[in-house]
């Protein structure tokens, strides 16, 4: 076993051109470039910066959906199209700061727009030493996956507040060929398996046009031109699950919503949780006020009411985590209106592991 492992590492080092002396079988050194976290970093970069066109299976709850993803970065602008090949026929098309969600089953189009374009890689989670206390990062010896040389990287949470991942990463392109989302006991919750994936230098604009007709659809846009105004209430969490920190909070407009919504972002370096706080609404029934939970694939949501405000936590974390966080959100202090700025990003020193793409500019 050890010999196998050593041979595996030797062969990788050979590939990488780093002829490190690995005489000692017992203590196989892991080169920084070959560490699991380095692989994850490369995978994140590949996912966001490469041009690709792939078909994959999304498996969860015993159901399988075939989806196609087309991703292109051209002149600094990201275009991405995610389309359901069976079932709902939904399409999500991103162009720069705009994400258009076509929901034919709802006869509806949502247009989500970020206020500005930030640096592309700005919001990649960075796997720092703090993250290592929350997750166990491991990489297996090289293996074959679907005819390709691949690395199996596992990210195992050390508690039940977060999910883990198993990722089969292509050696040559660093693209994830297969991803499993697992709970803290290693049970698979969701799988994404590519059945075809092609990296291409040129992808035409026509590949990013929706295939469906939107005639008669209701279009919901957020009006990004009108100012969202100043936050009158700052929100915070009394307590957070281990390792989670608040990274930013600000106001943001939602498509179709009249009032801006306070958006708080928490992260542990791998997973992130958003908390949305909506102003009190009229006609909220007592039943609604009890709040409730929802699951959407790997995302969990929990909604509750605090001082008449509706507080909803959403994130790719277990249900107990969003419930915990939502229950801890309180108005920190009232601010004089009009405030200086609608966005209150934390000082960068407090954001070591996770930088939002927009720098907290909402």
């Amino acid at each position, binding site marked *: 076993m050890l010999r196998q492992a050593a041979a595996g590492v030797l062969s990788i080092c050979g590939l990488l051109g780093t002829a490190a002396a690995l005489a000692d079988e017992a203590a196989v050194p892991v080169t920084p470039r070959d560490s699991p976290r380095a692989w994850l970093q490369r995978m994140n970069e590949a996912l966001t910066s490469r041009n690709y066109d792939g078909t994959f299976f999304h498996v969860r709850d015993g159901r399988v959906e075939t989806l196609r993803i087309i991703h292109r970065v051209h002149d600094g602008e990201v275009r991405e199209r995610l389309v359901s090949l069976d079932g709902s026929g939904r399409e999500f098309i991103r162009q720069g700061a705009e994400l258009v969600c076509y*929901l034919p089953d709802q006869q509806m189009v949502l247009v989500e727009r970020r206020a500005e374009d930030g640096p592309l890689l700005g919001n990649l989670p960075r796997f720092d030493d703090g993250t290592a206390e929350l997750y166990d990062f491991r990489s297996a010896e090289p293996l074959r996956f679907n005819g390709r040389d691949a690395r199996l990287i596992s990210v195992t949470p050390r508690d039940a507040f977060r999910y883990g991942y198993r990722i089969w990463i292509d050696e040559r392109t660093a693209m994830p060929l297969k991803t499993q989302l697992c709970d803290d006991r290693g*049970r698979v919750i969701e799988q994404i398996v590519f059945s075809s994936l092609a990296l291409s230098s040129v992808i035409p604009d026509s590949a990013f046009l929706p295939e469906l007709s939107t005639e008669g659809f209701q279009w919901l846009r957020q009006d990004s031109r009108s100012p969202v105004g100043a936050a009158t209430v700052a929100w915070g969490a009394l307590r957070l699950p281990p390792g989670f920190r608040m990274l930013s909070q600000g106001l943001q407009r939602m498509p179709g919503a009249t009032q801006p919504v306070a958006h708080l972002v928490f992260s542990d370096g791998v997973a992130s949780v958003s908390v949305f706080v909506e102003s009190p609404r009229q006609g909220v029934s007592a039943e609604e006020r009890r709040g409730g939970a929802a699951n959407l694939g790997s995302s969990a949501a929990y*909604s509750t009411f605090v001082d008449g405000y509706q507080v909803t936590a959403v994130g790719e974390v277990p249900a107990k985590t969003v419930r915990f966080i939502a229950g801890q959100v309180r108005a920190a202090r009232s601010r004089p209106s009009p405030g200086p700025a609608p966005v209150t990003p934390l000082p960068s020193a407090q954001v070591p592991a996770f930088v939002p793409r927009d720098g907290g500019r909402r």
Partner: protein
Amino acid sequence: MFDSELPDAECELVARRLARDDQLKGQWSRYALIGAVIREEPLRARRSAAGIMVGSGVAGRVAQTLELDEAAAAGEGGRVAGSAAAGQRSGAGGSLAHWARPVAGLGIAAGVAALSILWLQSRTQTLDPSSALASTVVPADGRVLGAAASAGVEIVVAPPSLVDARAPGDPGASVGRSGEQSSAAGSMREPRSYVVPMPSKQTPALTTPQLANYVVAHSEYSGPMARRSTLSALVAADSAGEPAAAAGSAAAADVR
């Protein structure tokens, strides 16, 4: 029963029923075997009643299970599978002692046992993901690949095989459990092919615009992998029974 959580009296009841219900017995044995295979426990019986050597690798064991499953489905296989799991003969007249020993010996954790049961139940109720995978992939991707190859792009994944690191030449097993991994990697646990069926809490309000908005807005702050996963779930969301609710009229608080 697998983890001594069941009270003794009920254990006895189950055991009695197992003793006379061949179908239940076969099922129970397969759960036990699945659990053992999942945990990569050395099986007690290296040789099944059918006279087939159980392979040393997980793939072999899974393949073996599949064969046994098929045999069980064919008719008198329930007993065969039972023998393989328990390592004992377990005919219709098998006594309680025959069952008590494997119960103690296997010692399956509650989670795994429950998981296996849930999984099997879900297979009967919903589309079997693996067979759907196998049937969907093959024809479609050949064409995609052919077109792409002529365009000179780099093909990263060469379909049709979703059956990753499985031993080749085992089509029966491939169809049954595509995605099952056969290569144990050092200290890393063997990845599983199945997806845990989460208790379905999906309600019509789940994909109402408010929640969809939240999820989409949140995805901007996720890593690329989590973002893809989140958006995929949204794209793939089952629309059956969802009302075309207008924005703002549906509260995420409704979601249960």
